[in-house]
């Protein structure tokens, strides 16, 4: 953390012979453990109090939107893993639904239910990570170890389902890659059963922890008006008392069938954001259990998606029609109608939006990604002012952002 020093000398005494104080500028990040990646904060300090904070983002900018304009819709799926890389399954689903809206495709109920299960598992995994990192930020190491144990169990299940632990690329436009393996739902159910008591144990390490409450209660308070004005979404918005949850209010992928509650905070401080995330994990377990209990049979991809979905490999090697279809899919991409759609999904970090502008053909003309972390971070210059330097660490932890998504 480079620090620019200016030492007061005798010349800085004013006419009354008192020392004049100077503001200090402090650059925090881009490589700092509490900035969760490569966020840099340029701060101006008056003693311990932050008087100005200017976040510098873009260190992880890869030009995903430019890349998307130069490849087919199918080819972009793995890039969505790398947005919020803590919940790739949820990103895959959001992107797939956005393009399905463009293609006017309806996926079968089984596919919807599988997507809901995976998205909610991704939510638990992302919140576990957020909770652990938040704990470390404010000096509670143990939480991280416990939450990573739970996350590891989830990653085992992801690996079994998708073949990858981290970058899953599971959703396809018009379906999912493959059906769930035999016995997998039982193992997910078993995970949920053991997870609930473990979650209570993990949360009990923080909820009434005196150090934790001192460092989070009343810290980084975001008012309801500010939260809406800055476009905050997800747990950060709900902690400020706005009960907006796209799963309830704009249901997609069959979320309307499931019974769950939306956790809403009252004060909008760092502690409320922590509490909302804790409750969301309990609700996610409820959704997963319901979705598994009434998991419909049938296909896991849309029959109408033939022109989008890669045909089965054995057919490609033995049948002319499938071979041609495979060739056209790889070289020219799935043919989409012209038009524009915007779709937002309730991801662990907030509303992840895709704005797709198509001129027809296999390549999007423009793909704008609305990254929740980007919007959530834009409130930092407001919320950090007046806080102590140590509070900034707590605020960053409670906002729970991911730079892969913010910088795109």
């Amino acid at each position: 953390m480079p620090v620019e020093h200016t030492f007061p000398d005798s010349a800085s005494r004013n006419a009354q012979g008192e020392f004049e104080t100077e503001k200090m500028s402090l650059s925090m990040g881009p490589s700092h453990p509490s900035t969760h990646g490569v966020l840099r904060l340029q701060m101006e300090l008056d003693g311990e109090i932050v008087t100005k904070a200017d976040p510098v983002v873009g260190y992880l900018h890869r030009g995903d939107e430019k890349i998307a304009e130069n490849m087919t819709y199918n080819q972009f799926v793995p890039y969505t893993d790398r947005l919020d890389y803590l919940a790739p399954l949820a990103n895959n689903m959001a992107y797939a639904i956005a393009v399905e809206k463009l293609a006017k495709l309806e996926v079968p109920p089984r596919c919807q239910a599988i997507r809901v299960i995976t998205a909610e598992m991704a939510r638990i995994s992302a919140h576990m990570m957020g909770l652990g990192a938040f704990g470390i930020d404010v000096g509670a190491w143990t939480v991280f170890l416990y939450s990573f144990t739970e996350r590891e169990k989830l990653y085992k299940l992801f690996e079994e389902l998708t073949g990858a632990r981290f970058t899953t690329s599971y959703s396809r436009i018009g379906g999912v890659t493959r059906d769930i393996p035999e016995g997998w739902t039982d193992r997910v159910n078993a995970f949920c059963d053991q997870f609930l008591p473990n979650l209570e144990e993990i949360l009990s390490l923080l909820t009434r922890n005196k150090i934790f409450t001192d460092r989070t209660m009343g810290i980084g308070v975001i008012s309801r008006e500010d939260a809406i004005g800055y476009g905050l979404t997800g747990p950060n918005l709900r902690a400020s008392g706005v009960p907006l949850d796209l799963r309830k209010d704009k249901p997609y992928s069959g979320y309307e069938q499931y019974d769950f509650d939306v956790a809403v905070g009252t004060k909008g401080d760092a502690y409320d954001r922590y509490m909302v995330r804790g409750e969301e994990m309990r609700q996610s377990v409820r959704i997963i259990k319901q979705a598994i209990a009434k998991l419909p049979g049938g296909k896991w991809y849309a029959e109408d998606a033939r022109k989008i979905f890669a045909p089965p490999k054995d057919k490609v090697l033995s049948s002319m029609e499938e071979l041609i279809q495979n060739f056209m899919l790889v070289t020219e991409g799935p043919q989409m109608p012209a038009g524009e759609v915007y779709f937002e999904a309730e991801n662990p970090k907030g509303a992840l939006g895709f704005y797709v502008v198509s001129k027809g053909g296999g390549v999007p003309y423009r793909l704008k990604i609305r990254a929740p972390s980007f919007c959530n971070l834009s409130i930092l210059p407001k919320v950090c002012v007046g806080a102590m330097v140590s509070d900034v660490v707590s605020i960053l932890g409670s906002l729970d952002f991911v730079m892969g998504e913010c910088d795109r």
Partner: protein
Amino acid sequence: MPKALEAIAALKGKWPGVTDRASLDQPALNVPAADLPGVLRFLKDEQGFDMLADVAGIDWSLSVSPRFTVVYHLLSTTAHDYIRVAADCPNDQAPEVPSAVDLWPGANWHEREAFDMFGIRFTGHPDLRRILMWDGYPHFPLRKDFPLSGVDTDLPDAEVVAETKTNAIAAPMAGGPFVASPGEINMTEAEPRAKDESWNERRPKPGN
């Protein structure tokens, strides 16, 4: 009747320049750039579209005029409805639209991003700097005339460049595109890789 349709009906009486925009999902509007602040304020204060979800710039390529469009997505947190508001930038050389920062403080970063990527200026923006690229970067990467591979550019820190003798260099194989162009009669022309093979990892770039 959905909130967005109600809002559009109310809008059209007040601003005759507002027209419907083709859309495959939510209701959408084309608004003249000069009317944008009034229309957005009306949607926010009187129709309850209180959250600015997204601001996106679009480049319709060099040959098209108006070349740049700014698209706002608004969400009503009470009626749970989206509306899309698009404004064409009147000047193709120096695209400019009024800023929405005084309505939504969250517009600040979105508009900085549109400026960074497309060079669209937002009049009245308090702090229109680059956000994802570094200050002083000379190009607008999401414009259609900017190549996917990037262009050779000096890194921001002159000292680092002097020490390492490295700059931001363009990608080999022109970085793609990785998709064949439909409609080409000649297969070699349509082939993705045939686009630029004059230089790659093994063969040096001409002129270097």
